């Protein structure tokens, strides 16, 4: 469980939306170093939009995003390439690798823009973390399986040594075996010192490993708590589905 209390990312009263319609309303949350934060909720609740607003792909309507321990570095509204330089990584849900580049080249793109003396070292570290990728290192990204591509996407974000990575639905479309592999890797990343904010549809999967979890409904945070605790909470399912029903307990 979290050893350090240092803040990695803080979101204060963030609101965002498209074309005048707000989809995210006054959301505040905090992710600490060595923590996995989970963001779950039904589709259309705004979790992807929230992630886009934090990562600079979308400009927030109001509120702030701060990186690091207080007072921290304000990131609100900065373009994506600057955020990358500040130490914020972002793994989108789809289109998260470069299809016509090899695995090796994909990783190198993450390092471009600066003269990285430690490039080879970082590369080696990535291959240690993701051995499957090493085996496939000369293959084109579009030839990889879904699971391998997801790992590559994580590695691309990770290779720049960010302090926090935002991950958008890493397990989407993956088989159960690969899902488990993703959860394992996220845990390893946490041990390696990276904070993570993960948006997920597979609630059970992510709650198992999340230190802090938030349920978003209709653009606001409805419930928060430690992942495992929330998972046991009977309220979770009904709030998630929005109906007054009791989910049958599994044996």
């Amino acid at each position, binding site marked *: 469980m979290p050893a350090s209390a240092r803040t990695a990312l803080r979101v204060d009263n963030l609101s965002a939306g498209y074309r005048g319609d707000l989809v995210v309303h006054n959301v505040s949350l905090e992710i600490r170093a060595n923590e996995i934060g989970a963001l779950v909720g039904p589709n259309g609740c705004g979790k992807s939009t929230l992630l886009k607003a934090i990562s600079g792909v979308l400009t927030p309507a109001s509120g702030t995003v701060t990186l690091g321990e207080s007072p921290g570095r304000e990131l609100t509204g900065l373009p994506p390439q600057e955020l990358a*330089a500040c130490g914020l990584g972002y793994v989108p849900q789809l289109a*998260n690798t*470069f299809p016509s580049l090899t695995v090796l080249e994909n990783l190198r*793109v993450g390092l471009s*823009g600066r003269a990285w003396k430690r490039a080879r070292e970082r590369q080696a570290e990535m291959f240690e973390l993701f051995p499957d990728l090493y085996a496939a290192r000369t293959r084109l990204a579009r030839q990889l399986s879904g699971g391998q591509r997801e790992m590559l996407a994580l590695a691309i974000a990770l290779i*720049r040594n960010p302090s926090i990575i935002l991950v958008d639905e890493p397990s989407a479309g993956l088989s159960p075996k690969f899902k488990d592999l993703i959860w394992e890797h996220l845990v390893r990343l946490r041990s390696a010192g990276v904070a993570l904010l993960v948006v997920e549809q597979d609630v059970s999967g992510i709650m198992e490993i999340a230190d802090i979890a938030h349920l978003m409904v209709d653009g606001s945070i409805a419930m928060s708590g430690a992942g495992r605790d929330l998972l046991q909470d009977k309220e979770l399912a009904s709030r998630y589905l929005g109906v007054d029903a009791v989910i049958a307990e599994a044996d």
Partner: protein
Amino acid sequence: MSVLADAIGFGVVSGAIVSLSSMAMSLQHSVTKHANFSHGELLTVAAYAMVAMQHLTSNVLLDGVVGLVVAALLAVLLDEFVFKPFRTRTRRLVTLLVVTAAASQVLEGTFALIFGANYVTLQVPTSRARHVGPFLWTTTDEVVIGLAVLAFVVTHVVLRYTSFGRSQRAVADDADLARVCGVNTSQVIRWTWIATGLLAGLGGATLAVYSGTFDNLLGFNFLLLTFAAMIVGGIGKMYGAAIAGLLLGIVTSVAGAYTNQGYNQLFALGLLAIVVLVRPSGLFNTRAADTRAFG
């Protein structure tokens, strides 16, 4: 038989020039995702620059280098001040296409103002044709082919083995993701235009040497072959464009030899029409991907 061999030999040379032009266009299209109807003027400006330089030095190669540089300069200035403001402001692809077409007219008019409406002549050292295998080539021909091959190799090396090339291919694949990874996409686009200008300039220089005399429509008239090569090879695919360029050069030359040289462009059009209607993603495209270019 020797008619065929001569035609093929001729086609290789003209194909080399088409390759240069279409490689240039392909590079540009892969990052900007829109066609540039003023592409021909990049060739023309290099040709005119050579003519201007001839007043200073009669060394054709030196003149050519100046031509390349001028073309590269024009390319990057065009993008920075004319195209980019539209790219960032409009989501309609046709708007951008109209702008590039208008730009071509502005450039053609500028050339007419500076150099007059008549044909200009480039002094080219004469050389004798000799047989190289089955083909009949002059020294100029060989130089043109050599330069095209060199350009291809250099481009290939840069794309595959340098950090810039990798960034360029990343931006071509997915500009948003590249940004998220920290790539300065604006800079990549700028340098791609410079590369486009250099390659197109080389095409224009060789075309000028080849034609001897030309007017302000030199590059424009070459657009049919250039577009045909780019589309046949697969929009955005540099290697496909290069091969298709060579192919088109040979095809048009051979067809023209047996019918009427004036019609050889029609054969290129015919091939282009067939490819567009049957396989719009190009002959060399392994995926039948959607070629939606913009947005």
